């Protein structure tokens, strides 16, 4: 069955190129629209699948396999991370996402997607190089604009990671036109996996940070410390008369390691704005 599917996918780049590019735009727009990290994985896999099919005739089956393996690995890393975070530390995830509140506002994201589409159109109309086929130009321009907007709108490191991968795809489309070297392609694919690992790790640390500070906020609220007790509590926290958000946020060295913070599931959602 798999060889049949593969055989049917290969000629798509020639027969349905326009549809694929429209699909690329749609999946990119969905990635930009979605602030929820659980929805990122299917949209990313769809976008990456389209890019791979578009490049198939240029790169051959072996490099398609490498790209597919890297994409599946990225998807798995994201899936495991998101699953683990929502299972173990859902309140902390909610608080960490609330920290980036304006960026998760749907009308803002919809406006940004509209602006991104307009910008891509303008860029292609104004700067389209004659060297490149039109559909390649449209694809690369969209991926570059998607990268910029993904970074600007990223509410979490996972979104930033996918923005970086979109940029890598834009570069990969151009590189595929030049007869790619398998070793370079392989190293680049492993960079994709490393980017996903790093983004997943940063999201975990970020959520742990919000979980940790939330717990500390509650402790502080329960037992208001005297001016003499405060100094020992944090990395560089000022005495109680100056205790600000920063002093709470510096609680990293009071025994709350990132991993232990994740393992502790808060009993109730921490108050918003409890961290720096």
């Amino acid at each position: 069955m798999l060889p049949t599917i593969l055989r049917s996918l290969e000629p798509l780049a020639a027969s349905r190129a326009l549809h694929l590019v429209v699909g690329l735009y749609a999946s990119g727009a969905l990635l930009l629209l979605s602030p929820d990290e659980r929805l990122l994985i299917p949209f990313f896999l769809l976008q990456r699948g389209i890019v791979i099919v578009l490049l198939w005739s240029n790169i051959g089956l072996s490099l398609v396999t490498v790209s597919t393996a890297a994409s599946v690995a990225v998807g798995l890393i994201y899936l495991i991370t998101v699953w683990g975070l929502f299972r173990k530390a859902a309140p902390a995830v909610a608080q960490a996402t609330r920290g980036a509140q304006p960026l998760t506002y749907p009308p803002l994201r919809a406006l940004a997607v509209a602006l991104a589409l307009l910008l891509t159109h303008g860029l292609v109309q104004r700067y389209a190089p004659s060297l490149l086929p039109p559909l390649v130009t449209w694809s690369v321009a969209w991926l570059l604009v998607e990268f910029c907007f993904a970074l600007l709108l990223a509410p979490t490191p996972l979104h930033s990671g996918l923005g970086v991968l979109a940029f890598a795809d834009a570069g990969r489309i151009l590189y595929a036109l030049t007869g790619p070297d398998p070793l370079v392609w392989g190293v680049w694919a492993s960079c994709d996996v490393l980017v996903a690992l790093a983004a997943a790790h940063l999201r975990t640390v970020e959520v742990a940070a919000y979980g940790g500070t939330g717990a500390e906020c509650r402790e502080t609220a329960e037992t208001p410390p005297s001016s003499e007790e405060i100094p020992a509590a944090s990395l560089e926290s000022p005495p109680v008369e100056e205790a600000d958000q920063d002093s709470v946020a510096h609680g990293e060295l009071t025994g709350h390691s990132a991993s232990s913070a994740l393992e502790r599931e808060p009993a109730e959602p921490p108050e918003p704005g409890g961290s720096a």
Partner: protein
Amino acid sequence: MRVYWLSILPLAGAVAVALLQRWRVPMVVVALATLLGCLRLSSLLPMNQAQTFLGQQWMLDGGTQRLLILAYWTTATLLAIAAAAQQAGPVHAPMLASLGLLSAAILLHSWLLSLLLLPAALIVPILATFSTRPDAPRGASHFLAWVTVPIPFLLAIPWLLDQLAVRPQELAVVTWSAWLLLPAWILWLNLFPFHGTMPLWAAGGLPLVPAFLWAAKDAVVIHLLLAVWRQMPALQMESVLSTLRTLGLLTALFSGIWAVIQSSLSGVLGCAAMSVLGLVVLGLAAGSADGLSAALFLLLSRSAAVLLASAALTVLYDGSADTPQEARKRFPWEGLVLWLIAVGGVLALLALPRMANPAQGRSVLSVLQVQEPRLWQAWRISAAGVLIGLAHTSWRLWRSQVRSSGGHIRPVPFLLAVCLLLLCLYLALSPQVVSGWVSGLML
């Protein structure tokens, strides 16, 4: 033993350390043994002999050997400090893996593959980010967003140069290729306007990973980008150098100014380190042997100062706090020493550009001022910013951490920090040692 073992050994060590994560002592022993093995190996391997592995040529020369030795010592120092500190988190495996990839990037003969491996080596330390404050992941997230971006630009360079072979009349292709190298300089060194990434990362936690990047990564990035210029001198165009000089100046200026609003001494250290890096880039882009020598002297001295300050800060933050009653009984002299070392490290970063380079007989600032007359004013503003930031953050650190530390600084990391101070004092008193390393690196 072959040259590529210098890359395989740290990578294998990283895997072993990751497997031993739960057992602290064996993990530290394996990590340090790996680095000692690499140091020994780098001095035993034959020089200037190309060897083939994975279809690629690998070679060790004098400059590369010196660079690797510096990277190994730097990493060993940081790992020793991290091992002695209780709250340092899992930094050993990512640092070793990054070192293995950095070694591969240095030793490979193919510059394109080296410049592709470099982003991978830069991404791996992100896995060592740990903090319960959101600043560190935010800084690391910015770093992640930028480090892979130069890859497409670099891949376009050989393609453009091939076009030149087909159509020799199109000389503009060389100019484009020269400009395509600029994103790598800016993004891998986090120059202006990306200069805030590293201080943000450092401010959010113990500055171990940022220190690794400042001390090992910056040297390797500069080495590789200079190697590209050496291999293809046509890419070293005056317009590109002029832009780099401007970016270096802006990095030096704005990093210092940004130190004013930092809330922790780690953040100020980051700003000072980035500010000095701006001067290093100015020297590298001067396009003269004098500028290069001054820049490398400053880069090596900066690594020593950054290591000293970050080690002292790590040990200080790691110390447990006394109750106020216990703290009053005993003067916290260990905390005071560490505090002084940390402040001294940041001040040393400010003093370095005014130190005389023995190879030239004059200060780095006076060498660089020939190319950039506005440098003196910019550096004074930057230094003032760092001093203001240093004053208020060190005062906060004194009140919050040092005064309350009592006798609860752990002895082993404290001794390590003091040993590092003695080493830095030795280097400050005999700058010809640093100068000798600079001439070795310039081979």
